[in-house]
């Protein structure tokens, strides 16, 4: 097709061809084309097949209101080709058709509509019952639009941006630009979002002006240049607002252009004020076959010509209900498109200049008429125009029908901020009932059509927003408001719904193939409001997100429920439209996901361990070394700790300091034990419980000075601890400070019979058992002056020194110990080796041997609970009550009868003789080389806890009858007297 090349409004560069491939054939568009406009210019009329009926669908709109032009591009399904810029070499394919969209073997589905009334699937396909599983498979195959390969990889670059601004203006048309300029004049920092690649909105492609003024496109260009050169205004084009949330949070997505370093960019901002100036769209006209390829919105036909240089047909008929429709007909006629007739559902109130223009060009004008049907299978062959009273009709041949019933405001962004919409009888629009503070609107969204009014309303909104942000401009805003009020209102668009009839092929929603008949059926079956009809018919749930059906659905409902009323006057009976939900435009998950950084903490000696072959696992926010061998068999690590010495990086444990006059009171509140009894130089093992007495954390507490304590928490609890303590002391007004030192503190647990030998080589401090015995702590220095706080603990059951080291010294300390230990067989060990070592000692790891409902008593740790503290600790009441409760899961040690049988962790314990046969489960169980036995810890009902009780273990692998025998045994399994850790 030859393009119109001399138009001042043109946005394609006909000197810059862009090649593409469609159905294995090379085509050519131009720079500035969308994929859809390039295909249209190349003669493509059928872009896709519809979801249910496989009806041919074509270019209907240019802003993505429906799924009509969704295609697969470069392997990505469901690309909205009408809003996606054509990129060089794009590979474009049809979707949802067998063979091609033009010749779809499933086209016969369209004739089966009688068998597919609204919600038919709820009342069919379930009898007989054996039918449904087969039918469900078929439904699945038939449904869905595009296809994505499981191994598809998104190749684009995705960026994120979190800009700051006082005001965000959504919509870069004349009203939005005026608002931005007015606000910038008052000193506001403004962000202006525009979904199209250029500013200008509805002015951009219109030649006509109003009276003496410059043509609209020139007014748009003038505004755009003023906006673009203002430093206080940041303009984002190709940026569609997709989300609006409480307190003015705005999200948007920019589609990158050829010069951008990204393909998609996610924007999120919280401006102080928002102006929504998203204008209006055309409201689709409902008639028979109203979505045939060849039927499009008048604005779409006009923009195809004015913006892209494409005359959409050879011969056109217009059926409109608004002055812009008349303007489009006249303008296109002047550009060379033969217009056979223009129908307008309005009987009066047309712009006389436009009517005169049509007469001058001898275009027959039918006021009070509308399109009733089009003929043609794969395109428009003829159209039937009828008078709105139904008395007369006329059939005209044409290949293009530009049809719209009137306007519908692009109110979705506003609705996200303002909540439910209500019908406004004056404009026939659905508008917000209330506006939250700081949210304003302007322009055609309010039904303003005269260019002057649009521009002034933009200024009013910009000044209102500035005043909201504190600028002294309320007077100026009011002056413009009064000026606007004095101007004549525009001529309203029609509120026409549809000719009466069965509406069998009258499509209300294109994406889901919902017709007027379906809506009638839904209403007839008791679904009386749009929100329910949406669920029953799926209208508005497709990719167009109600872009086609949003306005018409409630109108149809009103018309169906009030059949006797004048079809153009249903004011007062129109129900609210369905709720608008973000994202307003479909957004690639890639764009939301952004750059995809993994958020993880590494300990100061992460790399050192990696060099030694550590296999890391994520534990909460951390990466921890779990194994030091690839085959995950850690017996060498375990043996080395038992016979020589090992070192474990325990830096992830929570480390806190609490100090101040009431520090002890706070500790007494959250720890179950009595913290006033901590002896100087001694370490106290302690546990925190919740209100149910259930253990949430354990660790050690030491007193490091007057009203000054250090305590540790488990890795997983470190993040919550500060808030936990604050929460439980919130009414006490206690004076204490709490510092989370976890990230600043590294911990090395040096453990094994040779641990002291190693430590003595790196410190001058006396670490002999006499000077520094088990259960004590001490501050000293390693050589070179590295300060350490050393705790003598016995988690793994051997002589061990837990060295707390400033994180910045960790690497040095690690290397020093590593070197000092080389003669003693020192090697690092990981968390799994620790797991086995501590299991042999019967030491519990919370979450492994306990669960959410396990309390301190259940873990046989009642000794950590002090009942005679002055301060009742959190959980005390529950623990006192639980002392009398016999029906709880309790921790026991178990030994497998067969020492070659190691059931997996989590296996259950069963007894068929009782009503509730699952009597417990295994927390951790391992083959112990030190003991030459398989031992573990399990939670089991009280009645099975006596030493020597036989237990049946079921691992869930085979049949439930396949059990393994185990016996309850005393703990600790290893070194029960604890001699080795006291060496």
């Amino acid at each position: 097709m030859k393009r119109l090349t001399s138009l001042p409004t043109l946005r394609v560069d006909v000197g810059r061809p862009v090649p593409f491939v469609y159905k294995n054939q090379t085509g050519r568009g131009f720079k500035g084309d969308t994929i859809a406009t390039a295909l249209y210019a190349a003669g493509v009329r059928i872009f896709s097949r519809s979801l249910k009926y496989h009806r041919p669908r074509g270019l209907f709109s240019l802003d993505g209101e429906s799924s009509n032009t969704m295609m697969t591009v470069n392997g990505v399904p469901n690309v909205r080709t009408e809003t996606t810029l054509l990129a060089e070499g794009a590979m474009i394919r049809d979707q949802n058709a067998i063979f091609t969209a033009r010749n779809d073997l499933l086209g016969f589905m369209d004739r089966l509509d009688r068998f597919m009334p609204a919600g038919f699937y709820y009342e069919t396909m379930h009898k007989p019952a054996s039918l449904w599983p087969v039918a469900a498979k078929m439904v699945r195959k038939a449904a869905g639009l595009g296809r994505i390969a499981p191994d598809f990889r998104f190749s684009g670059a995705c960026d994120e941006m979190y800009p700051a601004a006082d005001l965000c203006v959504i919509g870069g048309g004349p009203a939005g630009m005026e608002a931005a300029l007015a606000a910038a004049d008052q000193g506001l920092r403004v962000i202006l979002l525009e979904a199209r690649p250029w500013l200008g909105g509805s002015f951009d492609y219109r030649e006509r002006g109003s009276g003496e003024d410059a043509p609209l496109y020139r007014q748009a260009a003038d505004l755009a240049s003023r906006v673009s050169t203002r430093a206080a205004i940041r303009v984002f084009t190709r940026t569609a607002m997709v989300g609006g949330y409480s307190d003015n949070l705005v999200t948007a997505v920019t589609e990158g252009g050829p010069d951008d370093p990204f393909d998609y960019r996610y924007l999120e901002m919280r401006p102080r004020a928002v102006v929504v100036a998203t204008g209006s769209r055309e409201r689709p006209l409902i008639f028979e076959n109203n979505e045939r390829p060849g039927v499009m919105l008048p604005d779409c036909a006009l923009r195809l010509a004015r913006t892209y240089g494409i005359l959409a047909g050879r011969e056109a008929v217009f059926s409109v209900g608004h002055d812009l429709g008349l303007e489009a007909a006249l303008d296109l006629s002047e550009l060379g498109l033969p217009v056979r007739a223009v129908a307008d559902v309005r009987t009066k109130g047309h712009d006389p200049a436009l009517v005169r223009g049509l007469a001058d060009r001898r275009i027959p004008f039918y006021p009070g008429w509308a399109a009733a049907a089009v003929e043609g299978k794969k395109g428009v062959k003829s159209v039937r125009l009828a008078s709105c009273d139904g008395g007369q009709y006329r059939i005209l041949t044409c290949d293009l029908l530009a049809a719209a019933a009137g306007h519908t405001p692009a109110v979705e962004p506003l609705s996200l901020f303002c909540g439910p919409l209500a019908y406004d009888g004056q404009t026939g629009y659905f508008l917000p009932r209330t506006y939250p503070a700081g949210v304003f609107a302007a322009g055609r969204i309010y039904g303003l059509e005269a260019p002057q009014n649009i521009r002034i309303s933009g200024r009013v909104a910009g000044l209102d927003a500035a005043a909201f942000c504190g600028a002294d401009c309320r007077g100026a805003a009011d002056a413009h408001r009064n000026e606007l009020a004095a101007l004549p209102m525009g001529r309203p668009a029609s509120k026409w719904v549809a000719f009466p009839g069965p509406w069998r092929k009258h499509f209300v929603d294109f994406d889901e193939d919902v017709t007027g008949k379906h809506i009638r059926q839904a209403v007839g079956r008791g679904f009386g409001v749009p929100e329910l009809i949406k669920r029953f018919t799926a209208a508005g749930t497709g990719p167009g997100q109600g872009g086609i059906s949003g306005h018409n659905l409630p109108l149809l409902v009103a018309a169906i429920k009030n059949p006797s009323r004048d079809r153009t006057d249903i004011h007062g009976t129109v129900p609210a439209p369905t709720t608008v939900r973000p994202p307003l435009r479909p957004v690639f998950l890639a764009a939301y996901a952004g750059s995809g950084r993994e958020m993880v903490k590494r300990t100061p000696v992460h790399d050192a361990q990696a060099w030694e072959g550590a296999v890391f696992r994520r534990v909460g926010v951390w990466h921890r070394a779990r194994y030091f061998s690839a085959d995950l068999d850690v017996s060498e690590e375990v043996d080395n700790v038992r016979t020589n010495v090992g070192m474990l990086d325990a830096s992830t444990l929570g480390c806190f300091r609490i100090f101040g006059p009431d520090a002890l009171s706070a500790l007494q509140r959250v720890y179950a034990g009595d913290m006033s009894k901590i002896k100087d130089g001694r370490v106290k093992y302690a546990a925190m419980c919740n209100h149910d007495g259930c253990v949430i954390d354990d660790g050690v507490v030491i007193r490091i000075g007057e009203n000054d304590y250090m305590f540790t928490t488990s890795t997983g609890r470190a993040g919550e601890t500060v808030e936990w303590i604050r929460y439980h002391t919130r009414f006490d007004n206690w004076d204490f400070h709490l510092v989370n030192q976890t990230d600043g503190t590294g911990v090395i647990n040096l453990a094994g019979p040779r641990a002291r030998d190693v430590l003595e080589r790196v410190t001058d401090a006396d670490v002999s058992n006499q000077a520094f015995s088990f259960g004590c702590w001490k501050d000293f220095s390693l050589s070179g002056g590295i300060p350490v706080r050393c705790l003598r603990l016995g988690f793994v059951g051997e002589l061990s020194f837990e060295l707390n080291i400033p994180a910045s010294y960790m690497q040095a300390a690690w290397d020093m110990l590593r070197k000092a230990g080389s003669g003693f067989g020192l090697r690092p060990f990981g968390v799994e080796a620790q797991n086995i070592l501590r299991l042999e000692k019967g030491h519990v790891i919370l979450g492994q041997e306990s669960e959410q409902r396990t309390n301190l008593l259940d873990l046989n740790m009642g000794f950590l609970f002090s009942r005679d503290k002055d301060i009742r600790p959190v959980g005390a009441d529950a623990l006192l009550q639980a002392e009398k409760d016999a029906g709880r899961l309790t921790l026991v040690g178990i030994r497998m009868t067969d020492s070659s049988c190691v059931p997996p962790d989590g296996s259950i314990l069963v007894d068929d003789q009782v009503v509730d046969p699952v009597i417990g489960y295994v927390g951790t169980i391992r083959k112990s080389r030190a003991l030459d036995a398989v031992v573990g810890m399990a939670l089991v009902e009280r009645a099975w806890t006596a030493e020597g009780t036989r237990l049946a273990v079921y691992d869930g692998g085979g049949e439930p009858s396949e059990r393994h025998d185990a016996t309850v045994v005393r703990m600790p399994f290893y070194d029960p007297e604890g001699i080795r850790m006291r060496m």
Partner: protein
Amino acid sequence: MFGAKHILPKGNPPLESAYDAVLIGGGLHNLATAWFLAKEHNMNRVAVLEKNYIGYGGAGRNTAIVRANQRTQKNIPLYKEALDLWPVLTRELDFNLMFYNCGNLNLLHSEAAVKAARTNIATAKFLGVESHLLDAAETAKRVPALNLSQKITHPIHGAMYHPPGGIVRHDAVVWGLAKGAAEKGVHIHQQTEALGIATKNGRVTGVKTPAGTIYTPRVLVSAGGYTAGLLYHMLKIKMPISVLTIQAMVTQPLKPLLDHVVSSGAYHVYANQTLKGEIATGAHMDPWPNYTTQTTAGYIKHQAEALVELMPCLAGVKFMRSWAGLADMTPDMAPIMDGNDPVEGVYMNCGWGYFGFKSCSATGRYMARFLATGKCPDRLKPFALARFKNHRLMGETAALVNYTPDN
């Protein structure tokens, strides 16, 4: 084949002055209870009061997943019965509930998760519910889109595979139960708010509505996230329930990609493909108590990050709609079903969190029995409110809950 019979009652039936039972809340649990009261106990002078429209709360906002692979022996049988009821209800209601039996895969991302799954699997199998442990390769065979790389935040170790589960069309359940109950004479009053519960001498006498008091000897309050508030305001009964917003979203429809419901605790994400082809996905709750159903910007972003890492091909798919509902969370993630305590004739069924959909069929049946006989069925006894007073939690979650001031 397509009679013009109503599915939903067109307009409300007359509000009578007395009913045998009044159910407050027009969601799935009460509609199911009404259906079973009428069907199995011949009690059809029953009113369901719904402030808005039936199915407007959690019933219409969930992601339609059904399964019976819970953790404890107190829970599993209830969910199993619920699962077994879908085909039965489809037949009895003569309404296609579209139970799509695709099976559920719970992905496991650590040794600890495998251990926790082992307990669930063994318990389920021991109680006759099919459930298997899959390794990573077997898992990927079932869902080829999964990312088996070790270099992701939470590498996949395997999965708990539960073939009996799947998805059910949630709206269909609402409409089917409403249609069935109404046909049996139950009065469904939409746009009718319960304003209060009248009692005398510790017994319920009626329910106050804008149209006057309805006299009834039995009231069941089961209004999803609002139940705890209603019980407190009407009867000063305190419930240990936090109401949190839970969000969900769908992608544009695709040809079949996911053949199972896939969920991941570590990534806080689950996804299933609806029969229409959309990937429906959601997971964790907003961490602050909240009665709004507002969505948040951070959540949809989180969801995308998680899904793209788990199933990289989804990067090329688009989200098209998000929404939110309320989850009424109890401290032990198990519901509260109780009655005649502290007020004779007042029953409650709440605290389902995000398990309300998958349990509704069986729960409705038991609650109906409870109301009809006045005696608590054995199956429901563990779910009594008193367990919280006695510090006896149900143990439905294995992991330690990271308690924060918000829960």
